[in-house]
């Protein structure tokens, strides 16, 4: 008996000690201060190098401009972002301000993660947002994020010198998917592949949204999120398009970088590239020699109709965490950086080589006098022929996008036939709808 009792005593004391230790880990109280200044943490997802430079400079300027708030600026790489954020949320240490993309706002707001900015920022700040972007950050009439920029996700880049050498007309880029495949076939020579486009599910999940719209006029889910539409025959054509590019050896089968990175094109490994408008910035910054040999066109359409959507308008915003202990200060920083003096954001677009689009009327006005802002030949094409037909990123949980991306990848790599891949995605999307109780929860603006 005595042995059992002492073991019990030991185990109990172990539990008590551990509970005390765990209880000690909790945090509470008021906002962190340092030398009389309220400290707010700001996590920025790592983007192109010039962006980190710009953010660092502006955060320093903000910290120097006043004596009440200090912004603690941290850059978090994209591939560790989600787990780092989740771990921080679990420990009640989520950053006060963070970069959030348009696609994630609805889900985060529904889960109560984001502070409503209406009471924290002046109404004039929201009035300055362009009309086509307003709905991106508004849910149920409330603003949960302040937009920073807009960038179309899918544009066609091609090498005019290689195109001419292959006997094709650089002034007349492909307009249909079939023409694009014909071009890619002619341009695949030796070590240079005709094309590069996403080939892994995680990239396909989002980069193909525009082409999903293009193929079927909608995304593979009913408008009220009640059921999947992934088995519609129009999607088979989309999967066939990707499959032909991949299995025909028209694109690199072992890409070294993800879809968003324009390096393979910049290094001359491919003759054409599907990438977002941000690639213009990367080419100017890192591969300036390529700029003169490059032309940009709207991505080809399923039937050649160039007024059909080929790209979603993605982009980034800043949000305030719902549990932040310094919401007013956090919103104050966003107001200063994104919604304040238009010259600050104008300097950002200048640094980006005008490869992204403004979201505020006043920033457009500030840039009106800058000839570079309007004269860039690439951005002229993208503004006139891609953005007007671009759609907002979907607000449904990422799992659904990933399931569809997996279907495209399975078809490309020959795991499953196209109908079987779509059928599997259909089942998985319906499963997500059921298990996450999504039916009827689509956000209203």
């Amino acid at each position, binding site marked *: 008996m005595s*042995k059992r009792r*002492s*073991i019990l005593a*030991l*185990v109990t*004391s*172990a*539990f008590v*000690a*551990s*509970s005390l*230790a*765990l209880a000690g880990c909790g945090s509470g109280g008021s906002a962190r201060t340092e030398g009389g200044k309220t400290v707010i943490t700001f996590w920025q997802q790592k983007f192109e190098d010039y962006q980190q430079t710009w953010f660092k400079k502006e955060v320093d300027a903000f910290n120097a401009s006043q004596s009440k708030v200090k912004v603690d600026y941290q850059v978090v790489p994209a591939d560790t972002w*989600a*787990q780092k*954020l*989740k771990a921080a*949320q*679990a420990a*009640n240490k*989520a950053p006060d301000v963070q970069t959030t993309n348009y696609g*994630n706002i609805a*889900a*985060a707001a529904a*889960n*109560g*993660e984001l502070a409503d900015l209406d009471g924290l920022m002046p109404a004039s700040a929201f009035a300055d947002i362009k009309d086509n972007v307003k709905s991106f950050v508004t849910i149920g009439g409330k603003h949960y994020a302040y937009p920073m920029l807009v960038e179309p996700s899918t544009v066609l880049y091609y090498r005019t010198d290689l195109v001419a050498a292959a006997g094709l007309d650089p002034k007349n880029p492909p307009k249909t998917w079939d023409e694009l495949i014909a071009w890619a076939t002619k341009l695949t020579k030796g*070590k240079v592949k005709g094309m590069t486009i996403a*080939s*892994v*599910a*995680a990239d396909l999940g989002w980069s193909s949204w525009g082409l999903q719209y293009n193929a079927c006029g909608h995304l593979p889910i009913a408008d009220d999120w009640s059921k999947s539409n992934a088995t519609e025959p129009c999607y088979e054509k989309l999967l066939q398009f990707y499959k032909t590019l991949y299995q025909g050896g028209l694109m*690199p*089968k*072992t*890409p*070294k970088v993800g879809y968003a990175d324009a390096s393979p094109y910049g290094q001359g490994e491919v003759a054409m590239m599907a990438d977002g408008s941000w690639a213009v910035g990367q080419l100017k910054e890192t591969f300036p020699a390529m700029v003169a040999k490059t032309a940009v066109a709207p991505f080809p359409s399923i039937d050649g109709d160039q007024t059909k959507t080929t790209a979603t308008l993605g982009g980034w915003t800043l949000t305030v965490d*719902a*549990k932040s202990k310094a919401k007013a200060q956090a919103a104050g920083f966003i107001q200063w950086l994104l919604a304040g003096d238009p010259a600050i954001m104008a300097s950002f677009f200048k640094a980006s080589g005008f490869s992204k689009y403004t979201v505020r009327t006043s920033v457009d006005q500030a840039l009106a006098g800058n000839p570079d802002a309007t004269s860039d030949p690439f951005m002229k094409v993208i503004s006139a022929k891609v953005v007007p037909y671009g759609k907002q990123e979907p607000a449904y*949980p*990422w*799992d659904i996008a990933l399931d569809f991306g*997996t279907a495209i*990848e*399975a078809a490309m*790599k*020959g*795991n499953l036939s196209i109908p079987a891949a779509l059928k599997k995605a259909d089942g998985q999307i319906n499963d997500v709808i059921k*298990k*996450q109780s999504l039916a009827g929860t689509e956000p209203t603006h």
Partner: protein
Amino acid sequence: MALLESAQEGPAPADPTTGSDRRARGGRRSRATRRQDNLTAYLMIAPMVVLLGIFVMWPLVYSVYLSTFKISFYKAPQFVGVQFYTYVLESSDFWHSIWIGLYYALLVVPTGIVIALLLASFIKTLSRRVAAFMKVTIYLPAVVSTVIASVLFTFMYQDQGVVNWLLSLVNHAPVAWLNSPRWALPAIAVPGIWLGFGITTLILLAALLDIPESYYESAMLDGAGFLQRLWYITIPLLKNVLLYLLVTGFTLAIQMLDLPLIMTNGGPVGATSTPNYYIFNSFRDLTPYATSYSLTASLLLFVVLGTISIVIFRLIRSDKAVDG
């Protein structure tokens, strides 16, 4: 504990003629020392019990409790009972990942042990100086970080990498090693074997050196060939070491995370989505659903791994080594 107690209770009263008072005194003393020893023993295991309690038992119990809730870090958690257990068990992706883990372990563990056994037998025949050099060489991969190995092998598997260059000599290149659902898992198993066989070889070498030479000598006198010596002497005497290597190797291999994470990101189309990668990846999803789901999946993986270890133990009955 049993050992301590039997040692205390072992000696019987020495002389039946010495009277009951002596026996009583002896009994009192033994009870007192026993209590003393028990106290010492408890004190000695206490730090481990406390640490296990804090870092293993409590998190485990608390995780099981949490797995019955839909966890949100921003809203009140909602009690859902065993709902997430059914979600995980119903998920074909979860079972697929267990299969991938087993397949990876099957590729890595037996191959690793066979290579290690061959290398260890070879080193045993070498002179002391050469053997020392070989041991260092073979152990080197074990000190290379998995991350570096992953990056190295990723480069080797590129279209222009050394593997495809070798294949091009026989006109078979290029194979998209890491991007083909068929080849991706075997391709990541190669660095898995490479990283592991250093330690396995050293353990097997130590076990081989422990087998008395006289066994081999008498077997050779009786005319036993190499294979007979291997089958009747070496392998039976290595049984416990091999069992250890199999069990630890299997449980480690099924839990592989770094190689698929860095080399293939679980792809292509889930072909390298090992159980730990699958759980990690569901955790990375930002929905509250994913938090509870990945927690429940990891608890179920714990059950699956435990079952597999029990099966291996049952299949290979562990005997006490016959001491030489």
